[in-house]
Structures are given as structure tokens and as C-alpha cells.
């Protein structure tokens, strides 16, 4: 068989390719092997930092812990010793997962939830759309539809609640100053980083309690999964020798109480009315037409009602509702003006033959359906950079709270502007404009991506000044990606960026005066 001499090299080549190219398809995620959190400063005074909603760090009482020589505490220590004797590889994997930082891990879980629920409802047979209902979250369309405004608000509530809860936690840690189990009993191994931080109440449990309660309110279908994560985080803290059962119980109770306060705010922040109703939807169009402007219409088939038209009336965190109107920019060029024609022509010229690099930029920042949204993307960017900053858990929470308050408030001002002007998308004005990503189902002016990115880059640049120009460049690229993709005019992007930076500066003002800098 002479042919074998020809065929054998092919076989060898395939084997070689498979070896070189690695047939092993395991993928590496950016934070799968993060080193244990090892803060350069435990921020022991964080109990004095400025709170978001709590009036005082001791608004919720945490009673004094049992002494370290008391029998209940000795029982706690024995529990840890028992657990440490038989840690499975799975237990150890969970310990090292949570050791990277509980705020980091909960932020990742939050991004997962947002991406999972970021799906627009499928139409009814008669061409209308069902609306997700928090009163009936398990029925299709499952509640919530975590679109960008919903997501921005959800990230903000989780982060601010975590921050207030940890400030209270740090207050009690310093007040009671109970050492970690591995310090009390040298036969207990420290499987996470050893720190000077007192362990009562446990910060892992405070975070588990507050986050689980917030997430359950925001993503009610996920109660079982969230509860399981909370239990894992707490068990990892105990197994690692960082916290005793009594540290955990006190922490979780504190966290849950703080969450209740934030949930009460969320129920009355006007978000539940943000969907509007058919009358409101049609009034938006008639008011815009009465002002001599072309009104926005949905570019979807069947026509979908505009996304959260009253989100601009949600109560912000960084300023009052009156300030929202003052942050709203002036009008876009009139839809019948030569200037608007020119803007639309720019979109058309751009979209005719986009380069691969432009497509890459569009995809990188698209953050559309089924993703963690633009605020989630900025959480992703922040989290990766925070890892190398060696923040304490409370500083992680504080910085993400400031970032996410800025994102939510940017979303509020942006949505307020979008529905104030009800400005059409470029493809509505000129259907020849084809887009490199889906056209979002809400008015054009101002760009949400630009606003979110301007706000995020401003506050992140304040946290890590050496990265400020990097964040600014990223924000500029995110903003321009919306023009490049044909879904926004240049005016939408530049105005959005400015508004975002203005909102971001409110977060900076809070940051310089909250006692943490």
C-alpha cells in the first residue's frame, strides 16, 4: 500500500497540530486563580466612614461576644478543628475561591445574575409584549429584565448596602476587638490571609447576609442559588479558621438588617413605576411632535414599548431629584435641521464599510442582550484593577459603592434626558443606516454607554490616579463605539460623556469627604 506513505504524514500532522494547538479545551477565566486578599491596610477606622443610608454605624445592635475562654466559644473552636481535619478538595477549592475577597466574588455573582436576566421578553401572539412582574417573578417573562437601567440600579443597591453593612461591621470589630480563631488557638490553621482585623462580627457573614437579602429582592427567582452561595462563603470563613460560628451568626444578622433598610428604599425610589403605561408611551410621542420634532419610534418588529421611560424619575443616591433636571443637557439638534442631517450623514458614511478594528471596538463595548450591561463592564474593569490595589474588604465595598452610585445616577440622568427629548435613532431617520450591534429600544439622545462610561472613568480615575488616562481612553472608546456601530450620532456620544463626567464628579466629591481618604 504505497498510499500509506502519503497518508501517514497527514496523521502525524494532525497529532502534531492537536498537541501544539492543545486539544485540551479548558479555558482560563481572568479571576479563577486570584491570590488570597492581603490588604495593605485593613482600614481599622472604617467604622467612622460616612454612611449611605444608615444614620449611625451602630443603628443595628450587635451584642457583645462571648469571651474567648467561655465554653460557647470553645465549642466554636472545636467546630473549626473538626472541620479542618477533613477538608475535601472541594472545600479547599471553595476556601481559596472566597479567600480572593468576598466583595470581589459577590460582585462577580451579581454580574452573572445581571447577564442571566438581561433578556427582552418575547412577544405575545398578537404582537404585544408581556412585562415581567415582581409580583409573579417565576412566570414568563421572568422577573426582572435586567436591562442597563435596572442593572445600574441593582449594582448600586447591592454595593451601597454592602458598604454600609461593612462600615457597621468595622465599627463593632473595633468595639469588641475579638481576635480570629487561629489567633486564640494556635492549633487552628489560618487558611486565608492572617490579618490584624478583629473577627467579630465576621465580615464574610455580614456580606453574605446583606448581599443575599439584596439579591433575593432584585432577582427573586434565584433565592436557592443565592442562599447556597451565602452558606458557602460563611462555611469557607469558618473552615479557614478566620471566623467562629458566633462571628458568623452575628455578622449575618447585622447584614440582613442593613439589607432591609436598603430594600425599603428600593421599594419607594419610583423604579417600580418606571415601565410606564400605554398612555404615557403615546404621550411621549405626541409631546415631541407638538414641539415640532420627529418622535422616537421602536425599530423592533413587532413595535416594542420604550424601555423604562420613567427611570429618569428614580431617586438618585448622590444628589436629589431636582439636581437631575439641572444635569440634563440642552436639546440635540432639531430633527429637521441641517446639523442633524449632517450628523446622520456622518453615521451613514461611517457604517458603509467598517473596518475589522472598528467591529472589534463595537463588540468589545456592545454589552447588549445577555451581557452584564455597561455598568457591569465597568464593574469588571474596576474589579480587575482593584485586585492589584490590595484593598481591605471595606475599601473594596466603598469604592464599588461609589462607582455604582455614579452608574445608577448616570443612568437616571441619561434616561431623564432620553425621555425628555424622545429623540429618534439614526436608523429611524435614515433606514439605510445598518448597525453593527442591535439598536437599543429607547431614544437616542444622550448615549447611555457614553454617560455610564464618563461617570465610571471619572470616579475610577480618582481611586487610581495612575490609571486615570487609561480609564478616560476606555470611556472615550466605549462612547465612540456607539457612533461607529451606527446607533448614535456624535452629539449623543459627546453630550453623554459630559453628563457622565458631571455625575462622576458628584461621586468624587463624596469620596473626598467620606473619611476614607
Amino acid at each position, binding site marked *: 500500500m504505497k498510499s500509506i506513505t502519503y497518508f501517514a504524514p497527514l*496523521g502525524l500532522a494532525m497529532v502534531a497540530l492537536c498537541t501544539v494547538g492543545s486539544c485540551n*479545551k479548558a479555558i482560563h477565566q481572568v479571576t479563577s486563580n486570584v491570590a488570597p486578599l492581603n490588604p495593605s491596610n485593613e482600614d481599622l477606622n472604617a467604622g467612622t466612614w460616612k454612611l449611605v443610608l444608615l444614620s449611625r454605624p451602630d443603628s443595628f445592635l450587635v451584642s457583645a461576644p462571648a469571651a474567648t475562654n467561655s465554653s460557647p466559644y470553645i465549642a466554636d473552636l472545636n467546630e473549626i478543628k473538626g472541620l479542618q481535619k477533613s477538608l475535601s478538595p472541594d472545600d479547599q477549592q471553595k476556601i481559596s475561591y472566597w479567600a480572593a475577597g468576598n466583595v470581589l466574588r459577590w460582585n462577580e455573582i451579581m454580574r452573572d445574575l445581571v447577564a442571566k436576566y438581561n433578556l427582552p421578553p*418575547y412577544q405575545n401572539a398578537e404582537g404585544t409584549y408581556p412585562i415581567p412582574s415582581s409580583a409573579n417573578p417565576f412566570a414568563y417573562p421572568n422577573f426582572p429584565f435586567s436591562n442597563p437601567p435596572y442593572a445600574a440600579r441593582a449594582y448600586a443597591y447591592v454595593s451601597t448596602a454592602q458598604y454600609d453593612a461593612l462600615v457597621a461591621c468595622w465599627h463593632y470589630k473595633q468595639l469588641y476587638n475579638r481576635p480570629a480563631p487561629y489567633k486564640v488557638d494556635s492549633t487552628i490553621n489560618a487558611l486565608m490571609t492572617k490579618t490584624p482585623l478583629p473577627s467579630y462580627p465576621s465580615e464574610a457573614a455580614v456580606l453574605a447576609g446583606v448581599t443575599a437579602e439584596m439579591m433575593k429582592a432584585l432577582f427573586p427567582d434565584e433565592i436557592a442559588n443565592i442562599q447556597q452561595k451565602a452558606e458557602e462563603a460563611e462555611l469557607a470563613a469558618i473552615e479557614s479558621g478566620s471566623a467562629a460560628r458566633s462571628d458568623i451568626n452575628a455578622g449575618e444578622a447585622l447584614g440582613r438588617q442593613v439589607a432591609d433598610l436598603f430594600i425599603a428604599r428600593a421599594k419607594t425610589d419610583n423604579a417600580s413605576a418606571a415601565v410606564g403605561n400605554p398612555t404615557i408611551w403615546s404621550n411621549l410621542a405626541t409631546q415631541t411632535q407638538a414641539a415640532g420634532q420627529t418622535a422616537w419610534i421602536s425599530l423592533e418588529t413587532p413595535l416594542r414599548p420604550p424601555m423604562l421611560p420613567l427611570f429618569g424619575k428614580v431617586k438618585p443616591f448622590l444628589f436629589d431629584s431636582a439636581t437631575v433636571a439641572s444635569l440634563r443637557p440642552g436639546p440635540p439638534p432639531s430633527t429637521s435641521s441641517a446639523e442633524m442631517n449632517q450628523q446622520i450623514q456622518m453615521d451613514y458614511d461611517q457604517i458603509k464599510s467598517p473596518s475589522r478594528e472598528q467591529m472589534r471596538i463595537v463588540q468589545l463595548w456592545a454589552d447588549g442582550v445577555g451581557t*452584564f450591561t455597561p455598568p457591569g463592564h465597568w464593574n469588571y474593569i474596576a474589579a480587575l484593577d482593584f485586585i492589584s490595589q490590595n484593598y481591605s474588604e471595606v475599601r473594596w465595598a466603598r469604592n464599588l459603592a461609589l462607582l455604582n452610585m455614579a452608574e445608577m445616577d448616570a443612568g437616571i440622568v441619561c434616561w431623564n434626558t432620553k425621555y425628555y427629548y424622545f429623540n429618534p435613532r439614526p436608523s429611524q431617520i435614515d433606514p439605510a443606516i445598518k448597525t453593527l450591534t442591535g439598536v437599543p429600544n429607547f431614544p437616542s439622545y444622550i448615549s447611555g454607554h457614553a454617560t455610564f462610561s464618563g461617570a465610571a472613568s471619572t470616579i475610577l480615575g480618582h481611586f487610581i490616579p495612575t490609571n486615570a488616562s487609561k480609564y478616560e481612553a476606555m470611556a472615550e472608546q466605549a462612547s465612540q463605539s456607539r457612533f461607529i456601530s451606527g446607533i448614535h450620532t456624535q452629539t449623543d456620544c459627546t453630550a453623554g460623556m459630559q453628563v457622565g463626567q458631571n455625575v462622576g464628579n458628584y461621586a468624587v466629591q463624596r469620596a473626598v469627604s467620606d473619611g476614607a481618604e
Partner: protein
Amino acid sequence: MNYSRLRVNYCACLFGFALMTLTKVEAQTDNDAIMMNKYQWCSGITYMHEQWNNYWEGTYKRTNGNIGTLTTQSFMPMSNYGITDNLNIMAGLPYVSTHASAGTLHEMKGFQDVSIFLKWRPVSFNFGSGKLSLFAIGGFSTPTTNYEPDYLPLSIGLGTTNLIGRGMANYKRGIFFARASATYVWRSNVKIDEVSYYTTELYNTNEVQMPNLFQFNGSLGVYTKYFIGEAMFDNMTTLGGFDIRKNDMPFPSNRMNSNSLSVHAKYTLPFFTHISLVAGGDHILSGRNVGQSTGFNAGAFYAFYIKKNPKTSSLLNNQ
């Protein structure tokens, strides 16, 4: 074993079957039983046109008013060469364009994946009153441009580098033939432009794990000196992957399955056997996470000997 050395050789030009998923174009000359004789070279181009209005979101069949009709067209230059009478090498590179009739999404176009196949016929013997041939086929394909795989359904391809292994048997008796093949496709992971993506959970990486594919097909046809016609059933199964969620966008690592029927015809000009013409049609009967495409293809090929073959100078079908 009785290796048959056919004295009557036929121009064994490309006789393709276009497998269409949402985006994937795979024109397979490697999936027939026709062989080039030693030193025989055949080159040509095939045009393929595929359209769908319906697609399966998981197992749910639907239309999408924001896509309308999705059309994929491709031009595929191909070449096939006889290293020996029983070992052929073939290559192709399609230029693909996509277009949605509704909605705003921008069309895509560009060169897709180059493929190279070695087709080996180690065994061919008389069996009953017919002839049975067995084939082993190995292939490699990889993108030639860095097109965006995560822009489905308008992406021009999925971006994987593939290693393809196929076993095939062909039985010919009189003017009739029957053929069956089974194929395993190892697919590389792909990198997308996003920093994270959601499948059944969130992945914080731009690398997407791509499941492998299994494919089998069977066909029946007639085979004469100048004409070949056949009908083929094809099943493609993705060995893993996930379903498109309700009203979500498709994703490269979806579980894309399909059952399809196709017909193919090839005619060699009797008065000028250098040239042969091919045409075909295909339709997806059922599927999962793919468009229900219906398509046709047509092509023309030119065959000749680059060096004298001592046994034959025929350009007619050799099966």
C-alpha cells in the same frame, strides 16, 4: 484484497454538498466517492445560496421580525488533485456574505475558512455483483481572516480551526450506488471580542469552549459515464454546547444540530470532457439552534492532466 484498477476512469470532479447551519458553509468535495486519477487536476468554482425565515431557539421554532429572511451566499473556488489513483488532495476557500432582510443589522462578508483534505481509498473490491470501496478522509480547516464569530446569525463563520476525520463506504452496482459516511470534527476554542459572555453561566474570558461535531450521512444515486445524480440525508450533531435561551441571540458554542436532505447532480460535457457542471439543492428538515435553510448551488469545473498518466487519459467520473 482485490484492488480494482479501473481502466475506464472518469473525471472525478467536485461534487459538493453544502452544509448550512446558521452561518457555517462547508462545501464538501471530500464527502463523495469520486477520485481523481494520478496527475489529474480539477479546479472550479461553486456558488451557493442559502436562505431561512425560521430558526430553532433551542427546540422552539420561530421567526424573527428583526431578521426577516437571512441569506447566505458564497463563492467557493476549489481544487482537487490525484497524487495517486487512490489518494487525492483537495482544497477550497469560500468567500461568504450574509444579509438580513429585516431589522437594522449590518451585513457581513469576507473570506471564510480554508480547508484541505486528503482522501484515501485503501480498499476497493468486487463484492457480490457490485463494487465496494472504502475511504479514509482527513481534513483541516482554519479561518483565513479574523472575521467576528460572535455576530450570529450574520457572522460568516464560527472561527474554529477544525480537524476532520471521516470514514466512508461506497457500493456501486450497475448504474446505482449507495454511500454512507461518518465524520468526527474536532473544533478548537475560539476567541471573541468581548471580555465576558454568558452561556449557562457568566465566563470572564474572551475564550469560548467549542464542542466537537459528529456527522453522518447516507446517499443513493445513479452513476453513468457523463452524469451522476444523488439524494443525500445528512445529520449533524454538536457534542455539547447550549441552547439559545428564549429571545436571546445565538452564540458560537450553541448546540447546533440538523437533519437535512439534499440532491446533487453533475454532468460532464460529452463533447469536451474537460468541463463539468454541478448543481444541487438542500433543505433542513429539523434542527436545533440553527436556521431552517433551503438552498441551491451551481458550479463549473475544468479538469486536465498535469503529467501523462500511463494508464488513462480519461476525465470522466471515477467512482
